[in-house]
């Protein structure tokens, strides 16, 4: 009887904790909505596609930041995916055991570096480099801008995509690879026709996890993106992301409507990441490989 009581207590406790997590997530959403209410009431849905961000005139629109976030995140994904896929395949399939441990650890270490350090490194290393590039291409030599932010993001999200991809590649059943080798396939053919198709759902999931990181990354991006509240006209132009404009302007937001508009941007970011995750889950399910039992 005693054991049953403990069992019951444990169930109630764990249910309570699970509910708490849900409440916090919901609470965050409610808080954001309440705080951004003045802005939602004033600008309505047009907030989403208004380009002006003018604190003096009290006119606010989120479009430059939505565009800035989406462009930098997808560009970062584009840059980092070949590297993460290559690294993951090398670690899972090609690397000898000794190298695998060291390299895997190093890649994971990239995730442990604080964001602000990436930002500093970006300012002192990437910005001059991009400036040289811009001069060579006869573009305005800002150095800072969307492209620089994308480069930093690409490095920052690399470990997430790599570790998920490596894990799913390692899960490809040995007997499938053996079956292909026995048919005369080379290592590349096994990778191309067996491993990647089998692991595609997990590879995609890793990519989306990385995208989620990129969408919300704040500190490093704020330091190198140039902080200009205009919609970007080239990938080299200085701009702002949703996260960076909040971080950059929150302390200056003196009027009620200014503050509310910044919070509404936060709300939109929250919703975008939510939609990305739901979509990702749906696609991941559809890509899953069915294996019948024997």
């Amino acid at each position, binding site marked *: 009887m005693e054991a049953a009581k403990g069992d019951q207590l444990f169930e109630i406790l764990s249910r309570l904790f699970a509910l708490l997590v849900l409440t916090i997530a919901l609470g965050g959403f409610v808080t954001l909505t309440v705080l951004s209410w003045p802005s939602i009431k004033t600008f309505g849905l047009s907030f989403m596609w208004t380009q002006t961000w003018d604190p003096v005139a009290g006119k606010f629109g989120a479009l430059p930041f939505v565009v800035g976030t989406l462009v930098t995140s997808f560009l970062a994904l584009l840059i980092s995916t070949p590297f993460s896929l290559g690294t993951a395949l090398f670690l899972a399939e090609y690397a000898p055991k000794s190298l695998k441990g060291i390299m895997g650890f190093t890649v994971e270490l990239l995730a442990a570096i604080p964001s602000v350090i990436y930002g500093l490194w970006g300012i002192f290393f990437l910005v001059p480099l991009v400036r040289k590039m811009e001069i060579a291409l006869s573009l305005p030599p800002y150095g800072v801008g969307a492209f620089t932010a994308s480069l930093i993001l690409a490095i920052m999200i690399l470990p997430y995509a790599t570790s998920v991809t490596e894990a799913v590649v390692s899960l490809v059943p040995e007997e499938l690879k053996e079956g*292909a*080798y*026995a*048919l*005369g396939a*080379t290592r590349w053919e096994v990778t191309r026709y*067996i491993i990647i198709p089998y692991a595609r759902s997990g590879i995609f999931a890793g990519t989306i996890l990385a995208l989620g990181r990129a969408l919300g990354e704040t500190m490093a991006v704020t330091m190198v993106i140039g902080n200009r509240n205009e919609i970007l006209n080239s990938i080299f132009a200085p701009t702002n992301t949703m996260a960076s404009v909040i971080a950059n302007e929150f302390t200056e937001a003196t009027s009620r409507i200014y503050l509310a508009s910044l919070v509404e941007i936060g709300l939109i970011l929250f919703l975008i990441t939510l939609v990305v995750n739901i979509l990702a889950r749906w696609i991941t399910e559809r890509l899953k490989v069915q294996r019948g039992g*024997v």
Partner: protein
Amino acid sequence: MESTILKTEGLKAYYGETKVLRGIDIDIPRNRVTAVMGPSGCGKTTLIRCFNRMHEMVPGARIEGKIRLEGRDITSMKLIQVRRMVGMVFQKPNPFPTMSIYDNVLAGYRLSGVKLRKEEAQRIVEESLKKAALWEEVKDALHRRGTFLSGGQQQRLCIARALAVNPRLLLMDEPTSALDPKAAHRVEELISRLKETVTVVVVTHNVAQAGRVADYTAFLYLGELIEFGPTSQLFTAPQDPRTEEYLTGKFG
């Protein structure tokens, strides 16, 4: 005297420092079914994995001695050529889950980038599935995933996949041990018919199965070839006391 398709001379196989085969001399007769039997760990799977050079894929694994396929040393042949001439069917059916039945049969071509004309591809698929006694069951579902089939059908699909590239020698590593008795029976029937077109070497720990399907039987024990001969002779009048003990279930 039978004609020989594959011949080993003093074949030794190692995993690192562990010697698994201790000098095997065997002549595999052409267009016959040869069973390799013996207790677990005797090296029977390692032996056939030497025949298509799958053994060397394990890190630290190596062989000594010679293996001649149609008279040629297989270590001097191109790897893809060896694997084309020597097909393999595994213990656990392993159709490729991302491919249809059709593509599974053609995997040997697709995987190595060989382009086939459509009529030729269709002919190969139909012929191979017929040889594997699976055609009637799947001819209306060729473009469905192979993994929806039952275990026995999956194994016959793997046999069709191996036959599709026209191997000279087909290696089977305990091909029925993951199947239910009825499915196992069908695969056994199939093996007996296959020898018209291909030489079969089948690894089994099931003495009765060797008796049913094999023309020749080899008995391996602790990495040594104890006895090899026509199945009827080996079963009725074994020369070595260890063979007799194994056949009567004293060990293994």
